[in-house]
């Protein structure tokens, strides 16, 4: 065989042209469209390979002149490529920063809907939000959909995307009931990501196969989790509204208890203080009635160690998650120092003798200023974590004097249950940032 390949190379030393067509295709998929099209003039063996490419990616790198082209020129180039392309286009990405939303996109989507589109990404940067045409709603093969700056208004006969696995909506204008029914009519949906959207009424998330949920910068009334027993990764950031679980509206029920009751297999949780403060409404129990046995990673952003509400939610989550492997907390600035006592009391009063985080290996604490309650919290974590490997502490340089030496001295004094726990300390200078 070795001899054979050498013979093939022969005088031309042509190595890549003799590769099987499927491999040439894999190589071309890794290239920007311009380079892929260019290979058609290499030799007859390459001439038509690119025309059967299963994916077309029109982003800012698709050709070198794309940054200088006008909207019309860009559309012309896209049309030319589509005219020469043969066969189905399962994957199509349109993400050109210079391309404004325009009516010509309707024809593009019509073309794609007739060519077996399965993975569709349409990210619009400039111009008015783009109103999706009716042909979009007939793309029944869709498995992956990502939209930015679009208006999603489905026709009455729209039955959902029955094969959709992943849905990403960024700055998409959609009525809450439309979105609710879209989600519930995609029975296979595993990933849902909503960013910078406004929800006018209650958004109902009814998705029995959902594994990942991201809600970021959502403004609106409420989100209601219904039938989400498989949710494993949840990230909720800057959610200005109410997070709800079906059937629970009375304020006297603890929101925290009902929310986590509907997330039995959660593995990864990222929260930010708005959500945490909301969760503290209706009272925070010492421990959740359902143990979060699968929770491995807990990330909490913009936390204030002087806010009793926030800290009590965090303590409740830590108590209820015996298998945590990693905790990350980033602190936000807080000017008044009057209420510190409450948190300190909370931390000192609670009995932690029955709690141990037997899997906890990594703790990351960012933006610390070394308040009493922060130090108390560090002491607590060191005392209940037998296999802790690293505690990473980074300080807020504007609020910490003496390069954080006081914090470091205090922290190294605390007893550690884990004999090989390492404390990594980072002081970032204002000038260096």
């Amino acid at each position: 065989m070795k001899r054979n390949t050498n013979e093939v190379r022969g005088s031309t030393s042509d190595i890549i042209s003799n590769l099987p067509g499927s491999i040439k295709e894999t190589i071309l998929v890794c290239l920007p469209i311009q380079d892929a099209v260019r290979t058609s003039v290499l030799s007859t063996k390459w001439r038509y390979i690119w025309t059967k490419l299963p994916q077309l990616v029109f982003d800012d790198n698709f050709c070198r002149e794309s940054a200088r082209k006008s909207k019309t020129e860009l559309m012309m180039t896209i049309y030319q490529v589509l005219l020469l392309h043969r066969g189905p286009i399962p994957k199509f990405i349109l993400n050109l920063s210079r391309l404004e939303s325009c009516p010509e996109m309707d024809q593009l989507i019509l073309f794609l809907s007739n060519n077996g589109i399965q993975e569709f990404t349409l990210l619009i940067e400039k111009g008015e939000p783009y109103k999706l045409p009716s042909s979009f709603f007939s793309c029944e093969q869709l498995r992956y959909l990502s939209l930015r700056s679009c208006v999603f208004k489905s026709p009455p006969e729209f039955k959902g995307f029955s094969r959709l696995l992943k849905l990403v909506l960024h700055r998409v204008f959609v009525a809450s009931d439309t979105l609710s029914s879209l989600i519930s009519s995609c029975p296979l949906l595993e990933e849902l990501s909503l960013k910078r959207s406004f929800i006018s009424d209650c958004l109902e998330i009814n998705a029995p196969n959902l594994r990942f949920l991201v809600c970021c910068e959502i403004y609106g009334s409420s989100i209601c989790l219904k039938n989400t027993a498989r949710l494993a990764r949840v990230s909720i950031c800057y959610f200005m509204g109410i997070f709800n679980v079906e059937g629970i509206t009375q304020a006297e029920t603890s929101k925290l208890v009902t929310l986590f009751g509907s997330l039995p297999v959660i593995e990864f949780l990222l929260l930010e203080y708005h959500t945490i403060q909301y969760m503290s409404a209706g009272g925070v129990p010492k421990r959740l009635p359902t143990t979060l046995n699968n929770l491995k990673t807990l990330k909490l952003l913009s936390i204030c160690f002087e806010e009793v509400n926030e800290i009590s939610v965090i303590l409740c989550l830590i108590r209820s998650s015996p298998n945590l492997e990693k905790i990350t907390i980033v602190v936000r600035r807080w000017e008044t120092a009057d209420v510190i006592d409450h948190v300190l009391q909370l931390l000192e009063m609670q009995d932690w003798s029955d709690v141990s985080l037997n899997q906890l290996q990594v703790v990351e604490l960012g933006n610390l200023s070394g308040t009493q309650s922060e130090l108390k919290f560090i002491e607590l974590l060191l005392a209940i974590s037998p296999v802790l490997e690293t505690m990473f502490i980074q300080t807020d340089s504007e609020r910490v004097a003496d390069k954080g030496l006081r914090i470091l001295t205090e922290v190294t004094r605390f007893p550690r249950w884990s004999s090989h726990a390492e404390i990594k300390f980072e002081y970032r200078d204002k000038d260096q940032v």
Partner: protein
Amino acid sequence: MSSSLEKNMLILRSSDGEEFIVPEVVAVMSKAIKNMVEDECASNTIPVPNVDANILAMVIEFCKKHDESEAEAASDLKTFDSEFVNRGQEALYDLITAANFRDVKELLDALCQNVAEMIKGKSVHHIRIQFLGYQLFEILTSNFIWNIWCDRDFD
């Protein structure tokens, strides 16, 4: 009878007759070998025709690294991949053929990415010299696409 240690090991024999003892988890990263093992048509020694000892050793090195570093940072693995595939064209061709024939997806992807990097941004002229030898008679000057993008390369 094979002992418990040997139970998880397989012997791969290259086209030129050299034998390699490899953990089964590593060997089955090749889908072709995996199918043979699952169908129980693999005896003690699995022949790997068309792949010589030199290339087979490289493929095994790649699979071992990928098997070990599942928990490692993805960026480390990426660095390893890009260094691993950075080879002369002959080895590259043989590796691609082996990865394709034995169906080792990770390796094939890394190799194809590498070839793509070699083509990316280069002029047609340059690619011809690099890969094809310079064969002027094959230039298709009448090609439509040529007129759109490719003629600039010779400016």
